[in-house]
């Protein structure tokens, strides 16, 4: 394969140079970026992202390990111990029914995280499917769907969620559905616009030439490439989902007491803040803050990571 430069006949010759011996080309023309450098990547991560990951780690740890840390029942009232201030026995004090606030905050973490994940999963899935199909195929269905999306987007998500829960009723699953519907249009629009540009991509044409059916081109070749922006949105939606769920509960149209949910907890404590029992509301409030902040910072990091690729 690798011939030497014995090309005396060519008009372009190395002149009178002694024909140098050339070494064969190595098969791999260029070396690949190493797979290592995992630690370097962590090191160069921005401080804000690290704070975000820590915040989420804390919440996640509480949600998973909570029951083993706290020996109190989050639901059962304890009439002998109402509105006890934070102490060694009750780290975050007790509420007006004598329930341990820490136990309730931790118990609520699990519910809130699950609700947020469910909301995001539903919105992302519907968004990807509907956005992918309409973006790829276009046509009348696309026009109709986009008008509906426009209408939904003209309401603030939270207001829309209030309206839907008011219609459906305030069970946890309805809250999930309501907030998910409120966020779906964002995902539809995001995935659709990605798909609109990707369907013109040359590798889509190549996939067609190779013999792929259209649905396979859409699902296998294009959708995975259309998703990264939606995944960024999803991370942020996890935070907003928590905020909105808590907000609905706080307003009394979401999850109802006595279920331990951060919004419910904050709402429970509001009437006691003026009388000095701040801990009932403030601790769940801090939990919401940490969770939403965490998702936002991590979301930003994901966005940058996606942009860098």
């Amino acid at each position, binding site marked *: *394969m*690798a*011939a*030497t*430069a*014995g*090309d005396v006949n*060519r008009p*372009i010759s*190395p*002149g*009178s*140079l*002694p024909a*140098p*011996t*050339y*070494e*064969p*080309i*190595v098969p791999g*023309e260029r070396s690949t970026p190493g797979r290592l450098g995992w630690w*370097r990547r962590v*090191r*160069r991560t921005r401080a804000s992202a690290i704070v975000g990951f820590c915040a989420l780690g804390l919440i996640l740890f509480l949600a998973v390990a909570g029951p083993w840390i706290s020996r109190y029942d989050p639901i059962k009232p304890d009439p002998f111990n109402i509105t006890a201030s934070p102490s060694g026995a009750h780290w975050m004090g007790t509420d007006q029914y004598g329930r341990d606030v820490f136990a309730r905050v931790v118990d609520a973490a699990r519910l809130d995280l699950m609700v947020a994940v469910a909301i995001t999963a539903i919105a992302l899935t519907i968004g990807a499917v509907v956005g992918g199909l309409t973006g790829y195929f276009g046509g009348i269905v696309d026009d109709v769907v986009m008008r509906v999306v426009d209408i939904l987007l003209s309401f603030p998500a939270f207001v829309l969620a209030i309206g839907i829960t008011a219609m459906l009723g305030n069970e946890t699953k309805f809250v999930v559905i309501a907030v998910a519907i409120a966020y779906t249009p964002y995902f539809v629009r995001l995935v659709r616009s990605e798909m609109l540009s990707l369907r013109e991509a040359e590798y889509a044409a190549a996939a067609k030439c190779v013999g792929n059916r259209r649905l396979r081109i859409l699902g296998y070749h294009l959708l995975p490439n259309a998703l990264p922006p939606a995944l960024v949105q999803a991370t942020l939606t996890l935070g907003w989902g928590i905020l909105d769920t808590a907000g609905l509960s706080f307003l009394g149209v979401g999850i109802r007491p006595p279920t331990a949910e951060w919004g419910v907890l904050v709402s429970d404590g509001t009437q006691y803040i003026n009388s000095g029992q701040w801990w009932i509301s403030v601790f769940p409030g801090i939990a919401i803050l940490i969770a939403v902040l965490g998702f936002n910072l991590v979301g930003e990091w994901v966005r940058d990571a996606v942009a860098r690729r």
Partner: protein
Amino acid sequence: MTSRPSALISIHNLTIAFPDETGERFTPVVKDVSLTVGRHEILGLVGESGSGKTQTALAILALTRPPGRVVGGSVLVDGEDVVGMDEAELRRVRGKKAAMIFQSPRTSLNPLMTIGDQIGRVYQRHRGLGKSAARTASLAMLRRVGIAGPERVAASYPHQLSGGMAQRVMIGMMVACGPELLIADEPTTGLDVTIQAQIFDLIQEVQAETGMSVLLITHDLGVVAETCHRVAVMQAGRVVEIAPVAELFARPRHPYTIRLLGALLRPDQPFDLTRETMQVSPETVLEIEGRHYRAVSVDSWAAKGVSTPELVEVGPEHVVLCHVTEVGAPIVAGAST
């Protein structure tokens, strides 16, 4: 200034580096480049993508884009070092001394201004002409760069021009500045073959007329053969060979140049079926010991732990990047037998 004609541009040991993602380590993209552009000459700067040819040219106008920066060497433009100049001084150099046209002329033009106004402004600012004089001069310039119907073109906006027209306009605009050096960075990328030929013909004509120097960056050795007087070949950030065009094509010395010329496809000859495919590894360098040239792998040099390569004169105006093994051994000019 001495009476001896000095080079218009002389670049000494220029090194430009870009930081990696962490921003801690700098990777050089231009390594120890020394190069001159003489007065009234067309110098071709040839190399494949990523060879550092554009970065070298940008450094002449001190246009190295941050976070990249010049980490060593000097760039003398008509005797003045542009490395470390402040913006006010640079404004004096840009346009007056050296001007540049780019690959995509349409993005270099202001989309909100008519072509006539844009060229007119150049005349007002650089030549101090009045408004109506500038307009007349603009039309003359458009006609000069081969635009039929200059009035119509002067009244149009950049997006209304074809790629070839836009590049003509760019050339006209830069020439209007009256620069001593015109840098053309792959000026025909994306243009059709016939338009490309016209653009290069135009550059040659304008050069001959105004006597300016041209630094033509290209990857096409055909263009070099037809357009340039001298040529510098770059590979992986280094200039590996500089020679007059005829000399380079007749007697290439560096393995990389030989490899490039060996990879040429000739439009003017039938394809040579018996042609031996010459494959030289991109990692090959030239080693000189006394009068003997040897192409060796980079690795073997790294193993020997020998110093950096240097440009050695091997013929009239012909230098080549070599690792000199026997210090002090004179290289016979031309190395001809």
